[in-house]
């Protein structure tokens, strides 16, 4: 499958993965379940120790790179405070609401633009022009117009989430099997029933992929809004840590943001898997 980076919306459309081919697995690369578990754990452990060693030995001073134990220790003590969880909640709220608004707008518009060629052609140029604009450039504009508040954060997150999902939905609806549509039409299935029963289900894999991409974009932009505009959340906390030179806290907050990103990634991936349980790309290989 083509790997699409979430923030880079001018890339091409991510097509659903093809079913796994049997010939792909070569001889002599049998899976070893024990190794698959031990090796990653080992690899994480070694790199954490390396971090500790680099910082303690002074290769990079402890001021610039707090040791691994100090960073995780700081994260642990942050986790005892109410403020930290509130900030985490604010960032998650920015992500969730931004993604929700973006989805609520992008999917219906994408369905309309995908089902009508005339509509798609009419808006092709504006969309092609708006899509590659990095949402982050809107921050100063939002700061001066809407102000540094939740509305700005949500506008930014939903604006970013809107584009990948719009394009994925458009292509998904357009990519429907023409024979299925023609068959339905010759059986006298109405326009809306065709949309609901054929076009939408066949677009779901595309929409699901778009949703996963948009979800990451929404998190990035919610965080960016907090960092640069000072709306409450992990980004704002990180801004404070930077201003006061609290490097332990800076690293702890970055770790926490990474874990939030990871959690959101796993959440949307599993949602995608669930939504696509019936799709051939999710079928496991039968021996």
């Amino acid at each position, binding site marked *: 499958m083509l*790997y*699409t*980076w979430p*923030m*880079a919306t*001018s*890339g*091409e459309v991510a097509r659903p993965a093809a079913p796994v081919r049997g*010939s*792909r697995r070569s*001889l002599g*690369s049998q899976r070893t379940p024990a*190794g*698959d578990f031990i*090796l*990653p754990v*080992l*690899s*994480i452990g070694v*790199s954490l120790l390396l971090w500790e060693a680099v910082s303690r030995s002074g290769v*990079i001073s402890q001021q*610039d*790179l707090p040791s691994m134990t100090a960073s995780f220790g700081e994260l642990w003590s942050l986790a005892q405070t109410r403020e930290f969880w509130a900030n985490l909640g604010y960032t998650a709220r920015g992500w969730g609401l931004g993604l929700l608004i973006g989805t609520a707008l992008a999917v219906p518009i994408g369905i309309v633009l995908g089902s009508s*060629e*005339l509509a798609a*052609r*009419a*808006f092709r*140029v*504006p969309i092609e*022009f708006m899509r*590659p*604009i*990095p949402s*982050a*450039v809107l*921050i*100063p*504009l939002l700061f*001066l117009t809407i102000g540094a508040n939740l509305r700005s954060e949500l506008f930014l997150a939903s604006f970013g989430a809107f584009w990948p999902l719009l394009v994925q939905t458009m292509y998904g609806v357009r990519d429907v099997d023409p024979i299925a549509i023609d068959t339905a039409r010759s059986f006298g299935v109405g326009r809306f029933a065709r949309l609901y029963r054929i076009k939408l289900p066949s677009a779901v894999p595309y929409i699901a992929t778009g949703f996963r991409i948009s979800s*990451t974009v929404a998190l*990035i932009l919610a*965080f*960016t809004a907090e*960092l*640069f505009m000072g709306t409450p959340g992990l*980004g704002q906390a*990180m801004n404070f*840590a*930077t201003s006061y030179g609290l*490097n332990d806290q*800076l*690293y702890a*907050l*970055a770790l926490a*943001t*990474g874990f939030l*990103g*990871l959690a959101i*990634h796993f959440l949307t991936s599993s949602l995608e898997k669930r939504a696509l349980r019936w799709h051939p790309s999710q079928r496991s290989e039968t021996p």
Partner: protein
Amino acid sequence: MTRRTYSALAVALEIAVPLAILLAWQAWTASADNQHFPTPTTILEQFRELWLFAEFERHVLPSLIRIGAGFGIGVVLGVALGIPLGLWRRARVLAMPHIEYWRAMPPPALLPISVVLLNDIGDKQKITFIAFFCLFPVLLNTIDGVRGIEPTLLETARSYRVPARERIRRLVLPAALPQIVAGMRTSLSLAVIVMVVAEYFSSTEGVGFVLLDAKNTFRMGPMWAAILLIGLLGYLLNLLFLLAERRALAWHRGWRAATPD
């Protein structure tokens, strides 16, 4: 509706709708007279004054150099790391937790850390930061491309005792190239975004700095001109890359068109 009137209508709409949007924007901003939303003609005028080419050398050139250097480093590292990771499952299992974590990290969260860690807010920090995030799309696509190579090909080459270097140069790289190029394209648009964010955080020149400066001094004209410039920059870089890709991968498209799939 006949086919011809239909396609004529489509072309007419394709031209008319963007024009109508522009006109509506002009009419609205002219009548509202809101200082935050200057008219498109004012923005264009401001754009010409700033970027053609009075401030080009001072602000656009540094940004372009940062994008180029960061992108270049990211691509080279991505391919260099991706090939061994694609070929060896064990290496992949070892590296995947790290790749997954860093890829899920929102780039701005590392921005303050990059300043602290590199003790720099100049080109060194900007280029490193851009290169770091350009790395991942190329790396993951390279891994995927290398993994997708027909195992029989690799095994045949090995059983004919083709040396490892030749195997990589003549078999692995060309086979993975289409995927690598797709990753590069994603990285390039990412480079523009990351550049803006990096310059917006701490800088003394560059298009991101112009944005920041315009915000701090409440000057809307330069801000809109900078937004337009960054949009155009992303659009043009993508276009340029597509042209280069078409040339570089002409053999691949020809081959694909000839095989029924």
